[in-house]
């Protein structure tokens, strides 16, 4: 018995050598930070998801009540999900199409390409910021720049885009699409990997540009496209700042910009339902997990890597 245990532990002991110690020491700040500030609160929120907790009095255990209320009675929860999915389904394809189109134009080597690349990337750096959201508010309000241009060009008096529940969400979609910089850079890197011979051979065989795009560019770009889809989808689920600023934290008008994250924030920090907000956060985690898994499963049918087959 003793011998067996020794045999089991010795390889583990030999794996940790003295010279590893500095390595672990250097990693310690990150590991501690992760345990204390990320993993700890995350696990705590899992516990809180089953409680009623208003910050000032101690949490009360209420079992799965938060979840039953969420799924059976909470209309704002379902509305927030609807808003988030509409936003995501519009924003991700539009942004990626835009990013790909610009990347292809840049790949052709237009003059001053580096400058344009930098310029196009700027919105991605700024886009999540408060200042841009405030600017957006100014652009799309009743007497904002957008309406002034419309009036000047077409003589049409536009509505107040951000304070009308029919159009407010689309201003946020446009704001997000405008931040196409980071997927564009990734597309550009992908495009540069595609061997030029393939296009030469195809044009000798008489393939049109259109055909080349569908038969060469897109299939060879599939892994990059897939990465961008997964990444942007997760980002879209997490979108918060623009809706918060543009609606003044209300998700209004009439909850038309109530993103899931904004609803979660309101429940936690405006209505002080920390337990319920924790439950919402975990449901969001599961939703993102499911969507990502589905994307990976579906990718088997359309994404092929060079080292496969």
């Amino acid at each position, binding site marked *: 018995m003793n011998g067996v245990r020794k045999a089991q532990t010795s390889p583990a002991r030999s794996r940790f050598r003295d010279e590893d110690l500095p390595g672990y020491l250097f990693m310690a700040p990150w590991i501690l930070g992760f345990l204390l500030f990320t993993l700890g609160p995350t696990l705590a929120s899992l516990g809180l998801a089953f409680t009623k907790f208003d910050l*000032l009095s101690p949490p009360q255990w209420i079992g799965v009540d938060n979840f039953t209320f969420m799924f059976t009675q909470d209309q704002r929860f379902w509305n927030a999900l609807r808003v988030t999915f509409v936003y995501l389904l519009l924003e991700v394809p539009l942004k990626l199409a835009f990013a790909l189109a610009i990347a292809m134009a840049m790949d052709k080597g237009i003059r001053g390409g580096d400058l344009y690349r930098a310029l196009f990337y700027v919105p991605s750096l700024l886009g999540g910021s408060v200042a841009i959201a405030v600017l957006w508010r100014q652009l799309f309000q009743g007497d904002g720049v957008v309406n002034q241009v419309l009036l000047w060009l077409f003589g049409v008096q536009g509505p107040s885009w951000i304070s009308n529940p029919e159009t407010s969400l689309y201003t946020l979609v446009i704001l997000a699409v405008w931040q196409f910089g980071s997927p564009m850079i990734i597309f550009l890197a992908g495009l540069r990997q595609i061997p030029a011979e393939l296009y030469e051979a195809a044009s000798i065989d008489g393939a049109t540009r259109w055909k080349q795009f569908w038969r060469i560019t897109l299939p060879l770009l599939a892994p990059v496209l897939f990465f961008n889809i997964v990444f942007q989808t997760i980002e879209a689920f997490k979108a918060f700042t623009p809706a918060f600023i543009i609606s003044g934290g209300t998700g*209004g*008008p*009439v909850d038309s910009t109530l993103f899931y994250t904004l609803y979660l924030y309101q429940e936690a920090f405006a209505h*002080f339902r920390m337990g319920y907000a924790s439950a919402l956060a975990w449901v969001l985690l599961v939703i993102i997990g499911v969507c990502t898994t589905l994307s990976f499963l579906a990718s088997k049918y359309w994404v092929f890597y060079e080292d496969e087959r």
Partner: protein
Amino acid sequence: MAAFSRRQFAAGGAAALGMAFLGSPVFGQSNTRLRCFWWGNPERDRRTRAALDAYQAKAPGVQVSSESIGWGEYWTKLATQTAGGNAPDLIQMDYRYIYEYARRNTLMALESVMPKPLDLSNFSANARDCGKVDGKLYGVSMGSNSKAMIYDVAMFEKVGVKSLDIGWTWDDMARIAGEISKINPGKYWGTGDNSRWEQGFEHWLNQHGKNMYTEDGKANFSREEVAEWFELWDKLRKSGACAPAEVGAMNTGGIDMYEISRGQAAMSYANSNQVVAFQAISKSKLGLSVFPNTPGKPSGHYIKPAMLMSVSSRSRAQEEAAKIIQFMMNEEAGVRALGIERGVPGSVEAQKMIAPDLDDLGRAQVDYVAAVTKVAVPLPPPPPKGAGEIETLLRRVADSVAFGKQDVKAGAAQFHTEAVNVLARA
């Protein structure tokens, strides 16, 4: 010279450290540090910081750090800090929240620091007692206010209205607003949309002899009453007197977002002390008046503390905090620095101190509160927990009615049902 040697570095560091100690005036003195936290606007920040600076100048060794933020974020931050055992020493409190905070033992009962250093003997009984919870004093009223309609004086004069009678009615309002809307059609309206403000609805209920919530925190209104309220504003919108939904929906609650501040309507609905902050950002001259009356009914206005000042029960400088409140409420330098921005002071002496500083609007505010006091209804019990959520609920439902997404009846039913649920769940 090449790189800095280690010895030079150490010597320089020691010197810098020594300088830091020498340069610090409070080194060696007993040093009391306090934090003061309030919600507000730039005008209030300026005044409060001036008062705190004046206090620190006369009390060496006391350092007060101050922090301010908008109303919405204030309660988030205060709750988070309180829960984390890190509440500020001096806490600006609202009538809406004082019961909740006091009953959870997060505020200090002030009897132990009265009458010295905190002396409220000059306060009127009403102004003093509004800070009491279960018989003990947890907050000092920083000034009284009442709801007030804030209007653009020049626009009223353009349609021939020189002054408003305290008994003016909803019909008067509809007529005046309708005429103002004709001045610059489609761009400027007579009145902003008040159907979406919880306290506007509350006022209308008070006018009909009811409080919005019962003593035990339940909804004290019927869906028919909600429908009547929505109907009132629906008519005003349809007649063109009231700004349309798109304009109303822009108002997310900050003073700069009200229709009158954005230059889109001649009337907005707020609290009397806020007229100072409204005027600070407005190009046109503003006036204040009671909300429109329903003939033969009570005014619906009550006098309440605009805000209170409380001390954290966990503060390590409670005595000093009480001295600061005393300075702000009773001593000339403090009282005059704060002025009338937080409402009309509760102490008669303090009212005299600020009198020479008042401009027209300041005097109008004092007169207003005095006039309303004569027709006021009793102060209702503080709104229950969950009332904050009702505020956002009403805004959402009223907007959906204004945008025509549902009719008045459906909107009223939705608001009533959800309000009852919110209060039950809070």
